[in-house]
């Protein structure tokens, strides 16, 4: 016989994550990343002071799942929207949640200039190498040779150029205090990514500058893979183009 006292919770549903089904496809990485954010906001007690900035992509509905204030941005403009929020709410914790199409294509100017200004923001950059929401078209981050609905023969650098290492580019800017790349390919990577996010969030709380965590995620539907195949693809292939690790760390002693 066991008593209630003994029933210690090792992993509980994060209180800031809604207890209802998401619209994400089975195995989609967004779910994992939402969960990490919810866990961290809870751990850092940020629920009541956070203003999230949603972008346009499958994750636009983040506001339906995370129990915090949220503002929605036009496609790609989340860093500009977040700048407006940041400047008028200096005490809030502000983060953007952006896909790779959103951040690295249409939103290139906005992310680069938010970083150049050193806006005190945390950017959660979910790179699944594809436009998930619109049906799996090529993104600027799509791997060479990868087939998508708009690169049916595989991405050809002669026609469509090369995958863009946007986080490395951002890291050149002095306003960026922390830039790192993690993945969600397995539980241990999920844990490391969480640490990166935590550093980003804490840097903002400590008065740092712009920080970004790029997360190599999956889009099983867009990739035409099972969720598990997608995870393996990240672990084996995607990291070849986008190496994991800290890209720049200019934080005041962490």
């Amino acid at each position, binding site marked *: 016989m066991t008593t209630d006292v003994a029933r210690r919770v090792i992993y509980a549903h994060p209180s800031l994550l809604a207890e209802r089904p998401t*619209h*994400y*496809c*089975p195995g989609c990485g967004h779910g994992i990343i939402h969960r990490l954010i919810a866990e961290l906001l809870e751990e850092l007690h940020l629920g009541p002071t956070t203003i999230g900035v949603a972008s346009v992509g499958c994750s636009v509905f983040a506001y339906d799942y995370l129990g915090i204030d949220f503002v929605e941005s036009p496609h790609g403009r989340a860093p500009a929207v977040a700048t407006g929020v940041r400047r008028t709410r200096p005490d809030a914790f502000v983060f953007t949640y952006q896909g790779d199409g959103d951040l690295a294509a249409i939103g290139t100017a906005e992310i680069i200039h938010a970083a150049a200004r050193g806006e005190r923001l945390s950017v959660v950059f979910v790179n699944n190498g594809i436009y*998930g*929401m*619109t*049906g799996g078209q090529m993104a600027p981050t799509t791997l060479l040779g990868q087939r998508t609905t708009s690169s049916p023969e595989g991405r050809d650098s002669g026609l469509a150029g090369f995958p863009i290492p946007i986080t490395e580019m951002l890291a050149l800017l002095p306003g960026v205090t922390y830039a790192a790349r993690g993945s969600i390919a397995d539980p241990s990577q999920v844990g490391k990514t969480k640490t990166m996010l935590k550093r980003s969030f804490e840097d903002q709380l400590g008065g740092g500058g712009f920080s970004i965590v790029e997360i190599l995620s999956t889009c099983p*539907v867009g990739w035409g893979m099972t969720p598990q195949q997608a995870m393996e693809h990240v672990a084996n292939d995607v990291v070849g183009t986008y190496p994991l690790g800290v890209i720049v760390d200019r934080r005041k002693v962490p």
Partner: protein
Amino acid sequence: MERATILSGFGGQGLLFAGQVLAQAGMLEGKHVSWLPSYGPEMRSGTASCTVIVADRPIGSPVIDRADLVIALNPPSLAKFQGLLAPGGLLVLNDSLIEADPSRHDIDVLRVPCSALARTVGDERVISIIALGSAIGRLPIVSPESIRRALVEAAKGGAEVVAMNLRALEIGLEQGAPIGAQARS
């Protein structure tokens, strides 16, 4: 004559394809046709549906306010679409997933254990073709032969897939065939 069909259920059940087959079959018979899906990302893991119109003259509204045939593969679809059926219209229900009875009584109801039958064919995705077959067996908006031809023309997969779909179609047609006919087969 203008006949409108709604096919509805979970995403991934092959409904949109089944609708295309129906439209294609109509076209093969020289009829005017239109096929209109519910579209968008939210459909992926949610519900999906499409409307197919087969008519003798140019089609007006591709959006309908009354249907002659509704195929509902899951409970939400039943709830959502049964109201659109014209009196006397045909409702095909996936008996494997829908326990509830339709609230309408002025319609013809055909219960088919589509999911279960699909598993006998070996692939859950043929479920919609089974349902379509059943519907056409009962209400021949187009002829079964046209559906067979359309299935071959519209198919995207290899020969096996086509064969599997044809098998599913026959199973469906049988389900829909009037009791007498069924007995005869």
